[in-house]
């Protein structure tokens, strides 16, 4: 029995002690996280305006809010956002960074073939839709678990190495099924997120907190409704 207990794989399937993040860099992560998320949200919101001046004003507001979120202490925005919502998930940060990079690329190099083809292939790919549905299902599971409506402690399971391995498998699914690299978004972002989580345990040591937060869960609903409407209006 002692020999069996010493096998690592047993720790995969049995209870395993959570690995929690070192508290030292969590404040920096919170500042950076809220700065990225706010910049992406406001920048995306600004694109809804048709007037160029309003779009530019929205962009400036996004930059200002991001800077505001970086200020430490009670004068900083992330201090108060952290009070209510703690730290955004790594996935929300990665998607925000990806969006901001895309915006920057479109602005700097508007006519490059690569940028437009990437955007087109991402729109037609089924993978963002599949991951959004998966994320939404995960969110509902976590929500039911939060209110103790599930027979098993789903959130607590997020501390185990098995949940981490499962997320890795899901992130590798497009590659297994032979999807083109350009069409697999957001799987590459998820792989990066899981790599960062594996090294740092940010933000809480629980893999569900790394891949999905409640605001991202809300965002997935909006994305799926928008996609549904776009497909049925097309």
């Amino acid at each position, binding site marked *: 029995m002692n020999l069996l*207990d010493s096998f*690592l*794989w047993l*720790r*995969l399937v*049995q*209870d*395993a*002690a*959570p*690995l*929690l993040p070192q*508290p030292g860099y*969590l*404040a920096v992560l*919170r*500042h950076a996280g809220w700065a990225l998320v706010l910049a992406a949200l406001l920048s995306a919101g600004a694109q809804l305006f048709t007037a160029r001046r309003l779009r530019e004003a929205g962009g400036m507001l996004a930059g200002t809010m991001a800077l505001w979120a970086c200020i430490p*202490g*009670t004068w900083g925005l*992330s*201090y*108060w*956002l*952290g*009070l*209510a*919502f*703690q730290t955004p998930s790594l996935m929300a940060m990665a998607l925000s960074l990806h969006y901001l990079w895309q915006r920057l690329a479109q602005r700097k190099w508007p006519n490059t073939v690569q940028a437009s083809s990437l955007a087109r292939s991402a729109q037609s790919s089924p993978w963002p839709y599949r991951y959004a549905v998966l994320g939404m299902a995960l969110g509902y599971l*976590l*929500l039911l*678990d*939060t*209110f*103790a*409506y599930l027979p098993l*402690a789903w*959130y*607590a399971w*997020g501390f185990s*190495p098995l949940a*981490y*391995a*499962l997320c*890795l*498998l899901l992130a*590798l*699914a497009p*590659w*297994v*099924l*032979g999807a083109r690299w350009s069409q697999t978004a957001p799987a590459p972002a998820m792989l990066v997120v899981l790599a960062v989580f*594996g090294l740092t345990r940010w933000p*809480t*040591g*629980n893999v*569900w*907190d790394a891949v*999905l*937060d*409640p605001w991202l869960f809300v965002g997935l609903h909006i994305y799926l409704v928008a996609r549904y409407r776009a497909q049925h209006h097309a």
Partner: protein
Amino acid sequence: MFFSSRLLRACAALAIAGLLGLADAARRADLGPALAHAGAQIQVNGSAQSPGEAPLTGGHWERVGQGHIPMPPGVPAAHASALVALPATHPSALLAFWFAGDRESAPNVQIAMSSLDRATGSWSPARMVVDRWEVAQQLGFGIRRLGNPVAWVDGQGQVHLFVVATGLGGWAAGRVLHLQQAAPTAQTLWAWKATAVLPLSWLWNTSYLVRTAPLPLADGGMVLPVYFELARKYPVALRLDAMGALLSMVPISTQGQRLQPALLATGERDWLALMRDGGPEGRIRMARSADGGAHWSDAGDLPLDNPNASVATLTAGDQHLLVYNPRKIGRNELRMASSADGRLWSTVLDLESGPPGHEYSYPAMAMADGQLWVSYTDQRQSIAWQRFSWVGASPTAPGKESP
């Protein structure tokens, strides 16, 4: 060819995920089998002691002192005290913590602390030791209110403090804040630093609160009872290791009205959780674990009335003690009861009995130097204490090691 290529990639993905999962598992502490608590012995007053040792027979608890813990100067309100016994080598025998300020949930509420001097037997003047602004600065995000404290001494003799700290909202937006002594010496008893907020919920980590005392384990770790209270109320048992690191969380009951579980070890693997109930029946609810806290199931009600108020439990020798409000309505009476099995309780004595509208509530218990200490909220204005000695033919005093 197409399928074999997919099969190969699937095998590669499984291998990558498996290897990284194993690498992740290798970095973790070896918890052993799922029965994380199994075999752990109950610790009373710093010495590992199985239930059944130090039997308390042929005697009774006699009140040998009572009074009030000094309040911080000019502070009108106090509630939810917690007691913790310090190792015998420490000049203080007990520490008491409670929240104090203008009123419950007031912006100026802080955590107050007083220590019981082992030599003189007197309580020190109370001092505010946890301030929400200071803690928020240490953590890097805001805290709206401070609430119930719970204290614990780890395997190295360092004192840990778990405090309810709310986010956006009332108590239902509570989080469990973990603080430790800035340095584990008698001189720095008053200095605390926030180490983390325990990650317990996906929903912005909100609505977990702490109130009742931990169950110490012989491995130096403990089980910290917490509860969720946003819309539905349910209790959860957290396992922490000897350094205070979170090891596991297991729901105690999912009935939806039960909170503030007080843990009792009736055997090495047989544990009970006695819970305050928010329902109309006015009873103390019970859950049981037969495997050292790995799994819990509801175990009916105790035949004791309770007005939806917090209870405290303690095991002294082979005797289980319970302090609770014994009426369906009103917290104006406070009673101590004892039991051999945790299910059938007999009254030891009434600690307080006041007119309707008075409040004696939120009890805490600890054993120090062979004596039983009970603290509780007195009229929401101060923290009262009572001290008891076991008088009788017991071969060993409670809390002392068997010969």
